[in-house]
């Protein structure tokens, strides 16, 4: 499988990462932030799958199993984020990140 175009695939995941990072930096709604974080995370997962196919054989298996683990990890991370957003919404009645200004930067 070594004839895969490495630049194209890494470019694709880099673009995904860029979309995610842009979302993290610009979104003010916590739920949309979580979605942006997930998009960026998927860029890394896609990379693992792609490089697994590129390497093939036993090193390839490593990459595929890492990808599965990371999908599970992403769900855990979002669960914690949702717990925080729930508590925040209950206390302040908003999930807008820009409203959180009690601690000065």
């Amino acid at each position: 499988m070594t004839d895969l175009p490495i630049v194209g695939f890494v470019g694709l995941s880099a673009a995904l990462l860029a979309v995610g990072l842009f979302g993290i930096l610009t979104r003010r709604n916590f739920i949309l932030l979580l979605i942006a974080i997930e998009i960026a995370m998927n860029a890394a997962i896609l990379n693992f799958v792609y490089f697994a196919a590129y390497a093939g054989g036993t090193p390839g298996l490593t990459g595929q199993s890492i990808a599965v683990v990371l999908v599970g990890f992403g769900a855990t991370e979002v669960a914690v984020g949702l717990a925080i957003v729930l508590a925040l919404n209950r206390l302040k009645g908003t999930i807008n990140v820009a409203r959180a200004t009690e601690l000065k930067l």
Partner: protein
Amino acid sequence: MDLTSFAGPFLPEIVLLAGVLLVYLLDVLKLRSNELVGSIAVAATGFALLFVVADLGFTPFALLRTLPASSVDPTFSGGYPLYAFTSLGLVFQAIFLLATCLVSLASLSRPREERGAPIFYGLLLLATLGMLLVAVAADLIFLLLAIEVTSLATYLLVGYTRRDSRSLEAAMKMYIIGALSTTLSFFGASLLYGAYGTTNLYAIRAIGILNTGAGAGSYPVLVLLGYGFLIVGLAFKATLVPFHAWAVDVYDGAPTDVTAFLAGGSKKMGLFAFFLVLLAPILFVRTVASGSPFTTTQVALGPVLQITLAVLAVLTMTVGNVLALLQKEMKRMLAYSSISQAGYMLIGITVGTAPALAGATLQIFAHVFMKGGAFLLVAGVSAWGIGPLIDDWKGLGTRRPLAGVAFALMLLSMAGVPLTVGFVSKFVLFSAAVQAQGYFVWLAIAGLLNSALSVFYYARVLRVMFFEQAAPNPLPAGTVVGGSEPPILPAGGFGYGRAAAIGLVVIVIVAVGVYPQMVLGAVQSAAQHFVNFGA
């Protein structure tokens, strides 16, 4: 592999996990008193600490060894494992456990009516479990997932009160930045996997040194980008400038005992992750420098990383110190000073020799006590009605001599005054940087100048505490102490748990400062093993 041979080496982790389960079981059974749950946490970390110290080869505890001496610092023959017990890893496990033990000991004195004790101690133990796993990681993915075990627990720990909007806001900020840094780290790891075909740190080190890797030579850009993303991701965890802005807000907003854990514990985990991840490329350079047939591209990576790290270290020290000078609030001042200390620790990793690593490890050890202790003390005095501003501490040294002297000792140790542990660690670290020659000498000079700069804001606190008169009635009515001239409460007014923790901190600061051989030898030999390990 039978159960005992598997459970043996991981006994400290299993003890912690058992502690977590027990705490949550008691929570379900409605046994939620702070003293009960807290003593379980203290006991679990204490036992785990005993096992780890025994594994380090400390003879009086030889009976408690959980892994044979032969499996510490092993040589790899045939395949690289997911985890490996290095003696430096064990030293760090001990440091992490000490931090948690201090925090849970001090938290025994938290107000009795406060709710959520099981959540607090359970998450504290879970976060420590992740840190212990970081210390034995040998695989990049294992390392990053272990970091996440700690991170997820600390996000919740920061916001565990749920009623306090400041700490919830801190939890939210920490979550967003933490998730961002995690993503960047995993992206970097995926690029390294693409370049090397493996995620094992020691395999990567061997590939770099022996140059047998398939992809490494053909795509140097992947390696460079991979390490770049990893450095940025980990720099967030280790609060290096310019990735530090979140830390001050979080340290300020979190419950102060949690802040002590963040500054003394989980941040050190980020720094140890730096040790593991970056020593492969930097050691690679040192091996190559002694004359071997590598191409320029293969060698170029190490110096690039070293210069990047050197710049980060100087930036972190300077920006942290300058901003600390400008702070009016105690917690924020300590937070910025904690950031600048991370810069000193980074010097050790940048230089990458065994003495420098030993210096950085000592600095981290010292910082657990100085900064962790300082935050625990700040949490204690806030119960006396002393406000968040530095000026609120006026006259504390004369009204509360015990607390004042303890805090003064911690500050002097942070500033690096002789006969304290902070002096020993800085001395070892800076002299190692000078020995390494080259531009590392300038790193040592930058460190010394920064230490001098930091004396200004520590001295300001000392002046406020000892030489300025308190406002006429500093304590609002209804606080624990009454009257215009408050009497000294039992155990220094902190409650026994917190007083014991702070007493321990003071003893270590002075004892190790006066007699550094106690820990110096163990740390130095551990660092030497780590540098030679698997190479």
